[in-house]
């Protein structure tokens, strides 16, 4: 069924009885060409592009809970392409281009809103780093505008320009950055994949990966064994556990990242704003809630919930940067499990086991990567070769030291990225 305004009108006039399931709930078949473990944003987009770009439709997405239930369902919805290191730069640039055509491609309104993101800087050194970043973005063909203090004031008059502990020197604006309705991204991809024949199987937890003489042959699940010659692990947040089923130990530590939303408010923040000194980023959802977050709670955790020290720190950063939000009330806080890698960048790669592919290590940048990750992962699974936009996301880079992408420059301590 095609979605459109006309369809909404027609259904509205006839009692909305014609709407159908957005995706089919499939039951597992004994064998597929490709099994994707993980029904999050990345797994679903991988399935979609396998079907759409590569004609592979004998594909199953296995989700232990409900699709979209991981980090794609609990993030701060920011979409941007403002990385500066080779590898990340081309990948996120490619991903942003996919975002820009996503609604038309999926026929699903994911509310991709290119409202612009401003990353603030607070010292000469931070400005120089922002210039380097902005130039990397422009080299990549993306948009970047350097704002001075007055330029920032024109966009964000409500910031504390006069009394801030870390004065606002300026900001790097990416007009094409913005937000998207996170859940809808998962559903849109699920619908698109399902329409093309992919089986989306919920409540099906993988309990083992079958390997025979160095080659993957299928998986064991809570709903029985399923055979496949190709298996893709796309389970950021649980990567270490699933990879361990194939005897692999990953360069990943799992951490909790909290985020927050306030009660609904009339429009007051029209951009995505990030605070360079305070690990704070904020935007306002279309429903009116201020959606914001900060840094990790900093200790390894699978609890998907955080504690007050970081809650308070994030609120303090908000008060430091934009005290006009002080009277907004926080409605809900939540936590996601982040796959933290030693250089803060992800892995999309083959493994030493034939037919087993790995997509992990998204740290807390996974949401905006969803289209690009699925596209590249599908390419890798279908052709056996890395896609050129993700060619540097190799698993062996830590061992060799070649092509590390440490945007933060904090080194191989997983929680510092």
């Amino acid at each position: 069924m095609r979605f459109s305004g006309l369809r909404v009108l027609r259904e509205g006039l006839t009692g909305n009885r014609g709407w159908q399931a957005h995706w089919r709930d499939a039951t597992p078949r004994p064998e597929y060409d490709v099994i994707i473990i993980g029904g999050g944003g990345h797994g679903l987009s991988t399935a979609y592009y396998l079907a759409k770009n590569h004609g592979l439709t004998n594909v199953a997405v296995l989700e232990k809970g409900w699709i979209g239930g991981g980090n794609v369902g609990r993030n701060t919805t920011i979409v941007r392409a403002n990385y500066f290191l080779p590898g990340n730069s081309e990948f996120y640039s490619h991903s942003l281009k996919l975002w820009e055509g996503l609604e038309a491609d999926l026929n699903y309104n994911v509310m991709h809103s290119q409202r612009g993101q401003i990353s603030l800087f607070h010292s000469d050194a931070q400005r120089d780093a922002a210039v380097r970043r902005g130039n990397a973005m422009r080299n990549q063909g993306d948009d970047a505008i350097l704002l001075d203090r007055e330029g920032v004031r024109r966009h964000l008059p409500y910031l504390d320009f006069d009394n801030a502990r870390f004065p606002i020197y300026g900001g790097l604006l990416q007009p094409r950055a913005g937000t998207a309705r996170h859940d809808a991204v998962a559903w849109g991809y699920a619908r698109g994949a399902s329409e093309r024949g992919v089986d989306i199987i919920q409540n099906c937890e993988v309990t083992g990966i079958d390997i025979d003489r160095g080659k993957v042959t299928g998986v064991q699940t809570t709903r029985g064994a399923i055979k496949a010659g190709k298996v893709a692990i796309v389970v950021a947040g649980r990567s270490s556990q699933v990879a361990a089923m194939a005897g692999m130990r990953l360069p990943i530590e799992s951490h909790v990242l909290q985020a927050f939303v306030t009660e609904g408010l009339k429009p007051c923040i029209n951009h995505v704003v990030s605070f360079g000194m305070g690990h704070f980023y904020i935007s306002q959802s279309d429903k009116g809630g201020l959606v914001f977050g900060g840094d990790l709670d900093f200790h390894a955790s699978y609890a998907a919930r955080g504690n007050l020290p970081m809650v308070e720190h994030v609120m303090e950063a908000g008060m430091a940067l934009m005290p006009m939000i002080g009277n907004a009330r926080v409605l809900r806080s939540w936590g996601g499990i982040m796959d933290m890698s030693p250089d803060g960048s992800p892995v999309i790669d083959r493994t030493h086991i034939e037919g087993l592919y790995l997509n992990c290590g998204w740290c807390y940048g996974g949401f905006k990567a969803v289209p690009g990750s699925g596209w590249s992962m599908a390419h890798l699974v279908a052709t056996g070769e890395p896609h050129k936009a993700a060619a540097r996301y190799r698993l062996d880079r830590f061992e060799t030291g070649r092509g590390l992408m440490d945007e933060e420059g904090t080194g191989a301590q997983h929680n510092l990225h």
Partner: protein
Amino acid sequence: MRIGGEGPIGRGRRIGFTFDGRAYQGLAGDTLASALLANGVRVMGRSFKYHRPRGVMTAGSEEPNALVTVGRGGLQEPNLRATQLELHEGLAARSQNRWPSLTFDILALNDLASPFFGAGFYYKTFMWPRAFWERVYEPMIRRAAGLGALSGAPSDLRVEKAWAHCDLLVIGAGPAGLMAALTAARAGADVIIADEDTRPGGRLNAETIEVDGVPGRDWAAEITAELSGMDNVRVMTRTTVTGAYDGGTYGALERLAPEVAARPGAPRECFWRIVARRAVLAAGALERPIAFANNDRPGVMMAGAVRAYVNRWCVSPGRSVAVFGNNSDAHRTVADLLAAGVHVSALIDARHDATCSLDVPFYPGAQVSNAHGRCGLEAVSILTPSGEEKIEAECLAMSGGWNPSVHLTCHMNGRPDWREDIAAFVPRPGAVPGLVAAGVARGDFSTRACLQGGVAAAREALTALGRTAPEIDIPGAEDSRYDITPIWSVPGRGRAWLDFQNDVTVKDVRLAAQENFRSVEHMKRYTTQGMAPDQGKNSNVNALAVLADATGRAIAETGTTTFRPPYVPVSIAAMGVGGRGKGFAPQRLTTSHELSVARGAPMIEAGLWYRPSYFPAPGESHWRQSCDREVLMVRNAVGVTDVSTLGKIDIQGPDAAALLDLVYANTFSTLKPGRVRYGLMLREDGHVMDDGTTARLGENQYLMTTTTAAAGLVMRHLEFVHQCLRPDWDVRMVSVTENWAQFAIAGPKSAELLNGLLDAPVADADWPFMSCGPVSVGGVGARLFRISFSGERGYELAVPARYGEALFRELVARAEPLGGGPYGMEALNVLRIEKGFITHAEIHGRTTAFDIGMGGMVSKAKDCIGKAAAARPGLSGEEREQLVGLKPVGTVKMLVPGAHLFEEGAEAVSDNSQGYITSAAFSPTLGHFLGLGFLRNGRARHGQRVRMVDHLKGVVAICEVQDPVQYDRDGGRMRG
């Protein structure tokens, strides 16, 4: 309207307030909601999506409809619950989410278009034309959405944060909570009892129940008095426990009484972090509505709230009230209404077997199917076993049963258990370590059971605390059975509301199920059920019951969504208090700070420190003038600058040398006492961590300096290496950064300046480059280091910090006659760029010793942190970007830090990027711009030309690659 009654509301004292500009009067003890009801105001808000007129539904913090805005400017607070807002003189509340007025709201048109605005409609439309999303559709949606508004002014709310510690935290001061607190208090435990109401008692304040033979609220007051009189008890009213966190930590929000908050300097709210060894959850329960057509009409209220308004506030929400329920509370409501003299037009009991002893029109086995009266209820339609009837009523009191307040028990991922007999979720024991539920929160509904449950919970806690529980009499109270036959929604045409705030109806949930959003989490996200300010407190259970029905599953199997903190919304100001302005991070000031400021130096942030940017001289109007002068002053005479912000770590012990050999890439055990060496420190992953000079003050004593930014990091690292890798080593270290004030004295005349100052002059023979030792300044013991970050002959003189200000003053005073003076960070930066000295602009965490040309410093003779990883093939070689010096040689004479480098003829795109500039400055010494940067295989490319491109400012410059050291390459000036 106000009625007679026995309620505690203060008779006599009248309070004036306004709502939407209209003046009203209420009574002391009123909430805004009770006062508005008393004044006959029925419409208090508009709904989120359809902008339907709404009246108050509840009497607590869960209120979905009566949300108002109070205050202006920095005190403007949106979305306040009228049910919690204590009436005080001058209160001016405004309705929200309506335009132009509450009674006439243009966007109420949405209500007419509701067939098209079903769950998730926006995912299916607004896609064409593409450019319209940001320009037309989204702005339209954003303007229509939202509830209240922020003023845009910085928050002026006075708020505080505080800590509290206790043996037992009792959450809720109803019968169960009071008994738990009393039991623990009498056992001598340190008890905090917190309740969000203005007075302890919980439901006893709203009911006509007796405890121990006296009215429940009097009993509660008595117990409260006893508790308040005990030293080991803190009774915290107006305090909502908002979250359960790890280690027995709870968040709580205290609202101060308006008369207290009005005192000068008093806070309005306080956010508490309460650390409790044990906790009792006695938070009671929330009553749930029943879904039927137009059940959101103003006047349709929760039965328990109606009893609260009648019994506590002496207000009847209507001249005639119909009561609709599926449990015994409906009868209690009728009895209370009758006792208060309110006309009851019908008792509609959904239970077929119900009987009634009260003198009212009674409809067993009936259900309300519709409500009439857009801006205030006029009548309800009911479906009885014998047909449909219409009954006049200005208020419908409904009770769909009670949901125990399990929320806090779910904050640590616990899931509640479904209990079929009471048709409700109850806390799963152990869900929050150390917390037990008691009373209604546990699913025990009678007053007597609550009193008993409170004692039992306290006993359990006392046992865990190692205390003996005292004998305590359980007061007498009603012990009736809670009898409920669940109904979730009444079948029929029309929209029946589940989530009143987000306008989610039964149809929406059914549509979600039809579209395969069958998981409760999918349904929530697709319909937005439970995502509004009440977080589904009023609606979640009903919605999942409807979903269970639509998907043919049991409620227990359908499960719930997750309750997450905070239990009630907490302002960013309250949780973030202290972060405002300069409070966000500590300010570290050097001993020369005030003198620098007095000389007009702009102070800039360096980590947490402040350092002078430059010292403007008379006649200088631009920083470059000052900077250039200061650079030349150092090159030609002498300059003084405060370097105290650099980290200083005193390392002592027989194994100090061994420790330094392990943490530095180069060797320090061979350094002679009285000598200083530059050291390069790697991270274990083979990249540069930090650099600095380390002096050997004695055989077993070193003084390490770090960069300003990395001082804490390096200190932590040294402790790590010692405690975690070599605890057997006999070495100790301490940060002495703040103990010493240290000043660089740089320039050809530095020795001259110094010798006029020191008690004994220094001779070059005794004080060669990279030497150190004790000296005396005016009788004060000091340390002198002959080191240089400027490339000139230089010294650093350190004195105990209390002499820092005096020494700086003296140094500057003596420098000036020599043609010198103070210099700031700008000049310091130029001087070091001229010399190719690196800072964190170069060692930014991604560079290796090889990259900066110091690969040879990594000692082959010994192990060091980072050595093994630095040997990885990817961390050295021609492919690496290596440190180079750059100078512009084309027509454009400037360099821009952050600009990328390309081959001269190559297009400035990513694939062609060969490197970037890290630092650049105009060199007054050399008369042109200079830069440092990283260039692929750069060391082999000295003399070649590259193109610098800064897209952001549109600057393109041709540069020549050269050695990073661009001034005095052989270092003769420095060595003197």
